[in-house]
């Protein structure tokens, strides 16, 4: 794949993830505004619903990918020093990968008693 196509792919995925994040945000805000307040048991039950887990997993994937492309663009634009930029890019990538693993483990943990 050429560099140009890679840039296009990131551009496209950034917009597709944005669309999913926007829809998920509307659902979440609606639930926050109009849903019943939950206690611990109800909260675990909610997150233990399979289709909610799927929506959440997709949300986290879209979120971390979206954050990666966005922060990458910001660093490429504002950090001209190459070594510093590379260091920051690696730090952000490691952080986002760690958060992705942590959130996946969290989503799965609800299914263990």
């Amino acid at each position, binding site marked *: 794949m050429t560099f140009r196509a890679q840039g296009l792919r990131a551009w496209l995925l950034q917009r597709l993830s944005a669309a999913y994040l926007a829809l998920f945000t509307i659902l979440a805000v609606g639930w926050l505004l109009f849903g019943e307040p939950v206690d611990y048991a109800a909260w675990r039950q909610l997150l233990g619903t399979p289709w909610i887990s799927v929506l959440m997993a997709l949300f986290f994937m879209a979120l971390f990918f979206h954050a990666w492309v966005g922060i990458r663009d910001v660093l490429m634009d504002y950090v001209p020093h190459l070594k510093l930029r590379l260091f920051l890019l690696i730090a952000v990538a490691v952080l986002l990968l760690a958060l992705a693993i942590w*959130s996946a483990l969290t989503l799965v*943990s609800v299914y263990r008693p």
Partner: protein
Amino acid sequence: MPTQSARPRFLQLLQIRQPITAIVSITHRISGVLLFLALPFAVAALHLSLRSEGDFLRVQAWLAAWPVRLIGVLLLWAILHHFLAGIRFLLLDLDIGLSLKAARASAWAVLVAVGLLFVLLLIGALA
């Protein structure tokens, strides 16, 4: 690669009067970076809230604490702005509202809508 030139350089950021579209663009970036910085705390809160009842209550108490609430207000602005300005950028990418006049109008519309929703939600949260 950057070369030195004799051209005058004027980078007094506070004195350059940016067009409204540029202001919406840079605040989209700033709000995005703020939301990125909040991610580790959000994942940690989700993790703890599902781990045990004691941790769930602890997260609730943290979220109710004033310093956290203040950061929450900032993040509320960031989400509202990133969401609405983001929808505007998506529409621009689809070639909708590309004329200068329409782009300026939609930039103002985003700022006004963010301000209104922000105030409404704050009042709702306090009431």
